[in-house]
């Protein structure tokens, strides 16, 4: 493989950015539970980092916003749980297979990629609901657990699960970095800016979007498998939660800055912390405060806080250009 052809960015720069990315994440996941005994918070943080990275690949880089994005997460969780609980698979293999189920499902949904804008968002939402109804159907109780949920507490191991999730969260962030710095990433961004211009240039945009869709669904499936393992016992609505695993993730990515490498990570870190703090201490006001906060963010920094960081950089390094 010709590294220079695949990765357009400078290797040293990639390595340095990888270092900048890995170090704080590693510190956070390593020291976090030591500072604060509730490891569950950091487990969720790791899951959200993976989900934000997965969404960033399809939404940030291609501009396609799948509102029902959480379906891949849920299928990953269910795939893992079913294989472990009903077929006795080892957890690691089940998580991998669960993620592959998600990727297969995304292949099934590739016709949706022929839509765009609001139509694509709504169609993905409908797909989410359809899959949810299938999994929660009582007629499929012997296959999915149906409305009774599914339990695989026999392999419950939250500490190991957390360690794996933390490592894979870092890996997912590095994946986004690699995609961003690659010719593939440049193609995706070009599609986002002007799909028709890209197609006129002879590029098969559907193929690239499908690849992004596959990578994204696979990452979501891995996150879902890890989360399911962490729950041990869950009902359909616990993993098919549109608010928790679609809307919140979209908000995190938007807040940080979609299509950027660091934006979604910062979005997750900041907003997740704010959300949890409000939930724990101002629970009756959490929806109001969070809602107002989001309105303000969208009004004043619609492109995310990474844009503000860039502006700050310009002010520092190009003061003569000013604002």
């Amino acid at each position, binding site marked *: 493989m010709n590294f220079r052809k695949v990765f357009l960015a400078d290797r040293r720069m990639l390595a340095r950015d990888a270092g900048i990315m890995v170090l704080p994440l590693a510190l956070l996941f390593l020291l976090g539970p030591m500072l604060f005994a509730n490891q569950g918070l950091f487990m969720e943080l790791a899951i959200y980092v993976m989900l934000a990275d997965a969404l960033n690949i399809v939404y940030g880089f291609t501009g396609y916003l799948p509102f029902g994005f959480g379906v891949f997460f849920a299928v990953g969780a269910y795939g893992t749980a079913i294989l472990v609980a009903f077929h006795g698979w080892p957890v690691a293999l089940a998580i991998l297979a669960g993620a592959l189920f998600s990727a297969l499902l995304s292949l099934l949904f590739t016709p949706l990629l022929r839509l765009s804008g609001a139509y694509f968002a709504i169609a993905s939402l409908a797909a989410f609901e359809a899959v949810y109804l299938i999994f929660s159907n009582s007629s499929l109780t012997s296959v999915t657990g149906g409305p009774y949920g599914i*339990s695989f507490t026999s392999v419950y191991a939250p500490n190991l699960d957390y360690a794996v999730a933390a490592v894979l969260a870092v890996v997912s962030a590095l994946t986004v970095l690699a995609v961003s710095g690659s010719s593939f990433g440049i193609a995706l961004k070009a599609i986002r800016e002007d799909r028709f211009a890209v197609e006129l240039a002879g590029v098969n945009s559907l193929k690239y979007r499908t690849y992004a869709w596959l990578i994204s669904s696979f990452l979501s499936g891995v996150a879902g498998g890890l989360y399911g393992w962490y729950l041990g016992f869950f009902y359909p609505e616990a993993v098919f939660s549109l608010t928790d695993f679609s809307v919140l993730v979209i908000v995190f990515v938007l807040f940080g800055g979609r299509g950027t490498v660091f934006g979604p990570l910062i979005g997750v870190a900041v907003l997740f912390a704010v959300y949890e703090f409000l939930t724990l201490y101002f629970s009756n006001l959490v929806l109001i405060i969070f809602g107002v906060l989001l309105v303000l963010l969208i009004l004043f920094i619609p492109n995310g806080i990474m844009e503000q960081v860039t502006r700050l950089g310009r002010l520092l390094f190009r003061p003569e250009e000013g604002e």
Partner: protein
Amino acid sequence: MPSGVANRKVISQSQVTLLQQWGYFMGSENVTPPTGGPSGSRKKSSRNAIIAIVVVVILIAAGLTAYELTRTGKSSQQSITVGTLYAGSGSFALSSGYQLAGLKYWINQTNANGGLMLNSAGKKLPLKLVTYNDQSSTATAQTEYTNLITTNHVNILVSDFGSTLTAPAVAIAQEHHQLLFDPTASSPGFFTATNPYIVDLSILVSSQWPLVLAHYIISQKSNITRVAILYLDQAFTTAQAQTLDSALVAAGITPVYYQSTSASSAAEYSTLLQSINATHPQAVLNFGYDTNDIAFFQALNANSMHFNFVFTIYAGLEYAVLNKQTPAGSLNYTYTYASPPDVQYSNVNLGPTTSSFVNSWTSAYGSGPNFNNIAGYNAGLLIGKTIETAGSLNQTALRQAANKLSGNTTTLEGPFVLNTTSGAQLGMPMDVMQYQPTSTGLRPVVIYPTDLATGTAVYPAPSVALSGGSPAAVSGPLMQAQPASQSFLNQQAFTSESMAAPVQVRFR
């Protein structure tokens, strides 16, 4: 931007390089590999400094949050900390709030009496309640249950209302060897011989709820052979529907309509009711939560439909809410489970009788309690007795103490009978009653089992103009219930064993 182009001519090469790097950093399409340069290192350092500042700010924020959480979480050694969740919003908000209100009432009452006697402390200790709002979200609940155990170090962990919001706690509690006191989660899947860290306090296992109901319908076989069953696709309701369906089929009554749904609005229920109506049922049974029942009755009214026999769960469990939020007269002749406060237990050996509790609650709040208020309070009573029996806050000792209370304790909610291996609740039976209109309001009449009946059912239900329905108030207590109802269950053909088919659905 023309001015930008002009400025670009005067900036240095190193600044151009830096901006290119920023473009790369931001994920811009205009990615040009940085070339570096002799003056680039200072700028790179500056850029890295900004990144470092951002990272440090995030870590400081996280650290402060962690400190704050930890600081407030330290529990006093001079009190017993009770931790629980409640749903301040979302689909479980109503029921969860009622359960919490009942638990708080018990805590306030206990503290007013000087606290709970704890032998290991040698004195009475006050109770301190720690709560978090899970907003009906299982993901939030997962984090908050962990927080209660690992940060707040609660002595007593009480789960939120219902199976959905209890599920996230089961594995966590077991992992941390913390006994989970479960007031209203009845999914059989929670209770296994391998998990000693859960105990069901105030509610019969859901698959057993319709046993008396099934027997009643079968006893009415001469009148009722066409049965329609509609149920919400959640564990609590599906378990009941399947138990009932199986029992009826075994008795030769195959439901003419048997459908799960995720419906929550009156419009959705309207469509379903049209389908039900087309089957010409003699009995319609809707298994849902309070919000589902409200939508169901609204749809019935909107479509001017009338059935000879209508059963819902929450007509009895949350009568006041249902009566207030459904069209006038909706509950006339409705069948439901008979449970406290409509069923009143006077022969209790722990806590107040049902009637005296109803009176004290009414004088405190101005209106009577519902079933979930009582379930929350009942959970508190049993927790208190368990602590006093154990003499310590050791979690294993607490579970053993709960087992000791099983079978010889009767509270305002009925007999407390545990499956001492799994922790599932087998007492607190659900009989059948019907709301019958009288000149003074709706009167809940227990109709089955016959030895406990306070009246007979009105069947078929008279067709009345719903908008001109009867007054809302429930008239007075109906029956003095005895634990005999449990023995009734034991004597019936419809034990859980005989209905293995519906009950054996896979919970694990």
